[in-house]
């Protein structure tokens, strides 16, 4: 009997279903809602696994072509893809660390000055996955793994909004809302650079700026487009003969384009799964935290700052992407693993860095702050890969700044204890 229970609990999909079930029961939902919500959560986890399969097959072709063409590893950082990979092996630990990490976040908000509730649920999931990987690679397991993991997760969920808050007050003009996105180190860097360079620089919002990049808002389209460019370049560099071996004779350019769009499709499915997983868990977390810590500030995702400075959003994206390209060229010169600039991290995080840089240093701050951010998210993944074990050899990795910072620090601390 005990073994049966253990078996059930070691299926990650069931485990997240149970977490969701507890959340629904705590909110005293009706029987039909409890049933519906629990099933949706389990479904979400399984859908996510399916998306992982699609994305990873397309990505491995990319990795092979890159290796053939340039004789080194080429990595496109993409949170969704790497998390979906991680969950195949580390799903159970991730689910437990996520659930208890949220509780620890509430405790920090209740008993310390960091009164922030981190409501960007998908980032909570991604960070939980990364922490689970690093701790397990470092040799932790069972109770100590979940304890250490959830303490670290809960702490960063309160800590990062706290360091973003001074600039958030400048951006929004209030102290009612906080910022929750694990790219915070990059935004704080951008705000700091803005302060250095942006003396008397006018705000980005006093410029007339073209709005034609609106299509990039549609992230599936943006991913498909940029990946298609990468894939085609790499396919040409690898040569038609090699690619025909992978494609079973299909034209190499066509194969490259189809694989790029397949990757975008995989990410689309992963995101659908993530949405289903979070549908019940986040509202439960929000409801419970409002009851226990009524004076805490809700911390929200990047787009909360976009409407305050639409021009800075565009400047930030372009400038961060430029930083990513410059960073990539530096890595090529150093003959290290190549980190290609992914459109999603540069768009979301770069845009946010632009808004933060603009708040402290106007136009100049937005430009140079985001550029610094673009360099940062190019170099951090290189340093992060060694602590991810087998996951460090994947053709994708965690993209946003805080994953790099937390991962590198945690990975090296764990190494000290593992000796």
């Amino acid at each position: 009997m005990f073994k049966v229970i253990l078996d059930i609990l070691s299926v990650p999909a069931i485990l997240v279903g149970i977490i969701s079930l507890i959340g629904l029961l705590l909110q005293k939902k009706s029987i039909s809602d409890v049933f519906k919500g629990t099933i949706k959560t389990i479904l979400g986890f399984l859908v996510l696994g399916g998306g992982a399969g699609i994305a990873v097959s397309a990505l491995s072709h990319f990795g092979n072509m890159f290796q053939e063409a340039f004789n080194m590893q080429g990595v496109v950082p993409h949170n969704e893809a790497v998390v979906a990979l991680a969950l195949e092996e580390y799903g159970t630990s991730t689910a437990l660390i996520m659930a208890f990490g949220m509780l620890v976040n509430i405790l920090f908000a209740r008993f310390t000055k960091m009164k922030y509730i981190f409501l960007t649920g998908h980032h909570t999931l991604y960070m939980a996955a990364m922490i689970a990987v690093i701790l397990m690679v470092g040799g932790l397991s069972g109770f100590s793994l979940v304890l250490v993991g959830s303490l670290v997760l809960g702490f960063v969920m309160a800590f990062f909004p706290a360091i973003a808050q001074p600039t958030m007050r400048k951006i929004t003009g209030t102290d009612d809302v906080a910022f929750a996105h694990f790219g915070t180190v990059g935004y704080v860097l951008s705000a700091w650079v803005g302060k250095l360079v942006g003396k008397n620089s006018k705000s980005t919002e006093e410029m007339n700026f073209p709005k034609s990049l609106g299509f990039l808002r549609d992230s599936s389209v943006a991913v498909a487009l940029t990946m298609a460019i990468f894939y085609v370049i790499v396919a040409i560099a690898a040569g038609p003969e090699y690619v025909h071996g992978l494609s079973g004779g299909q034209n190499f350019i066509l194969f490259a384009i189809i694989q790029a769009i397949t990757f975008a499709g995989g990410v689309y499915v992963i995101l659908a799964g993530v949405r289903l997983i979070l549908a019940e868990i986040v509202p439960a977390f929000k409801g419970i935290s409002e009851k226990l810590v009524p004076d805490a500030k809700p911390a929200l995702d990047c787009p909360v700052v976009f409407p305050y400075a639409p021009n800075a959003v565009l400047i930030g994206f372009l400038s961060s992407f430029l930083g990513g390209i410059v960073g990539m060229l530096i890595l090529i010169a150093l003959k290290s693993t190549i980190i290609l600039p992914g459109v999603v991290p540069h768009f979301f995080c770069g845009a946010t860095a632009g808004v933060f840089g603009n708040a402290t240093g106007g136009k100049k701050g937005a430009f140079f702050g985001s550029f610094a951010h673009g360099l940062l998210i190019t170099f951090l993944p290189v340093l992060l890969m060694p602590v991810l074990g087998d996951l460090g050899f994947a053709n994708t990795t965690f993209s946003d700044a805080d994953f790099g910072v937390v991962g590198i620090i945690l990975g090296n601390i764990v190494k000290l204890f593992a000796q």
Partner: protein
Amino acid sequence: MYKILVCCGSGLGSSFMIEMNIKKILKELNVENVEVDHADLSSASGSNADIYVGTRDIAANLEALGDTVSLNSMIDMNELKEKLTAKLKEKEII
């Protein structure tokens, strides 16, 4: 049943928060025949919602799909309530 769809770039974080706020407002108004969901822009185009909601920076992408409520601020409950109520009245849902 009517359907409101809230959108943001990736359909994960901020649209989810606005969705929860809308549900709160609908509860206050005692409206029960409206379901609220959130999505990214790619999924929005095939969804046939009655009302789309987004912040002003992506509202232009939504207006092509149908009736849109454009928000200047993600966190201003009063703005959301005012604009949403007006839109619901205009569509004769309430």
